[in-house]
């Protein structure tokens, strides 16, 4: 269980976190979704007792992250964004080191890491610095788990990782959640949000929204249309002047057009495009993805600044 109340973090004049409050349940897989510089790492470092907040309080399984920091460290596992194992130690030596620091052994908690560690065990005598990106990530997760933490904090574990390895990593997280570990994970990949129980969208130090991914997608307050055409770049330029426009963005080979609620139909959009010389187009009403929600909230936030 993670309780965050009005956490604020300032570096000089720069406000990295502005009154952040969150409540994460025991055994929940919770995602912190936002771009670089949103404040994800600052929040995680505060929760790990590695950084003091400027204001506010936070507790991990009822232990205060400032007063009880030593106990907090015993019950949490942390995988920082940057690879932070010992590059000159072998795979096995790294794991042994982390086990020893926490007063345990690899054997005692092997069951926890088995699925993950087995994939890198053939390379256990290789130095950690010489592993590929995917293998480093698996070793880091093994090291974060070896002391049987109650809470796991993972800072962008899948950034820069290819689509296949990312899917495998999320399958591992699901299994860890199923054995009761509370997991807080951050990611800049919006498509990964749907794999979490609940998510918080964070931007410029502020939490914009907290909900389950499904709730978040269903609560999209405007109309969303999928538009496809031969030349979507041209089509998007034309749509930039459609009345009641909120945004038009490319999503792979199609455009997502967002217009104010109740102002358009597929017919009226098609008519607008035809009038402006666009032919061979399809327009369909569609449901918003997490990325659509994020873009809309960001847009609203930017307008109020």
């Amino acid at each position, binding site marked *: 269980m993670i309780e965050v109340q009005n956490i604020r973090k300032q570096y000089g004049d720069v406000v990295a976190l502005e009154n952040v409050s969150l409540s994460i349940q025991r055994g929940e897989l919770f995602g912190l979704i936002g771009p670089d510089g949103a404040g994800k790492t600052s929040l995680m470092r505060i929760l790990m007792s590695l950084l003091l907040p400027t204001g506010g309080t936070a507790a991990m399984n009822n232990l205060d992250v400032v007063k009880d920091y030593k106990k907090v460290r015993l019950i949490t596992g942390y995988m920082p964004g940057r690879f932070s194992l010992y590059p000159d130690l072998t795979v096995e030596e790294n794991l042994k080191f982390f086990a020893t620091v926490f007063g345990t052994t690899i054997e005692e908690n092997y069951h926890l890491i088995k699925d993950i560690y087995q994939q890198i065990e053939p390379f256990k005598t290789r130095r950690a610095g010489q592993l*590929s990106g995917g293998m480093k990530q698996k070793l880091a997760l093994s090291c974060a788990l070896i002391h049987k933490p109650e809470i796991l904090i993972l800072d962008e574990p899948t950034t820069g990782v290819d*689509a296949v390895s990312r899917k495998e990593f999320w399958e591992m997280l699901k299994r860890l959640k199923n054995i009761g570990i509370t997991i807080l994970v951050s990611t*800049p990949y919006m498509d990964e949000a749907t794999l979490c129980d609940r998510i918080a969208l964070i*931007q410029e130090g502020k939490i914009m929204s907290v909900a389950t991914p499904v709730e978040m997608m269903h609560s999209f307050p405007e109309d969303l249309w999928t538009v496809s055409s031969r030349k979507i770049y041209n089509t998007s330029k034309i749509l930039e002047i459609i009345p009641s426009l909120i945004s038009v963005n490319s999503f*792979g080979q199609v455009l997502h057009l967002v217009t104010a609620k109740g102002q358009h139909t597929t017919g009226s959009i098609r008519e607008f495009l035809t009038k402006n010389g666009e032919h061979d187009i399809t327009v369909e009403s569609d449901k918003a993805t997490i990325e659509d929600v994020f*873009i809309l909230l960001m847009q609203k936030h930017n307008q109020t600044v």
Partner: protein
Amino acid sequence: MINKEPVITVKNMVKKFGTFVANDNLNFEVYKGEIFGFIGANGAGKTTAIRILCGLSTPTSGEMNVAGYDIYHQTEKIKKNIGYMSQKFSLYEDLTIAENIRFFGGVYGMKITERKARTEEMLERLDLMAFKNRKIGDLPLGWKQKLAFSIAILHNPKIVFLDEPTGGVDPITRRQFWNLIYEAVQKGITVFVTTHYMDEAEYCDRVSIMSEGQIVALDTPENLKKQYNAINMDEVFLKIAR
């Protein structure tokens, strides 16, 4: 749009590190004015190939020509005719926007008058005129990446290599970044880009997919989706790489 005039030709490219084969006999062409996507799992050999094409590393064997120059004997000419940016290295954090532009303009041997005119045009386009004396380190990542790209094409190169240019960037900026790419293409610049965002693979004219040092697929996104019976590039990639 694409006239199939090759600006990059790669024949039997092999790169070995000791016994490890990073690039195992690559063959492909990149056409003038296209957006060429280069995707693949971590460790598939993408960065090794890009480094060779940029003249930063010598291949073990094979014939390669970039922007009309030979990869073995004319690397300095190649470097003058290409631009490069990556997520990791883009600009000097301790220099201001204006200083970075001056530095890179100088490195590429641009004439002062030309550099000044291009700088003006670029800062205007990015809406950054008011910030030209800000240090790069103080800018948000999204600005940095857009600026880094614009500086990478400041000298009007024939080809620009982009190595994961949008990693970690917010979804709005990511799309603005791709608009800059389209504008560059319209000026005739060829774009060679790697990405882990599969929706961005859809924005490319052609995509090559690497796995374990080899190119296992190369075609337009549309044809790849048909060939692998997939609804999007994400599915294509999963089917190929798994």
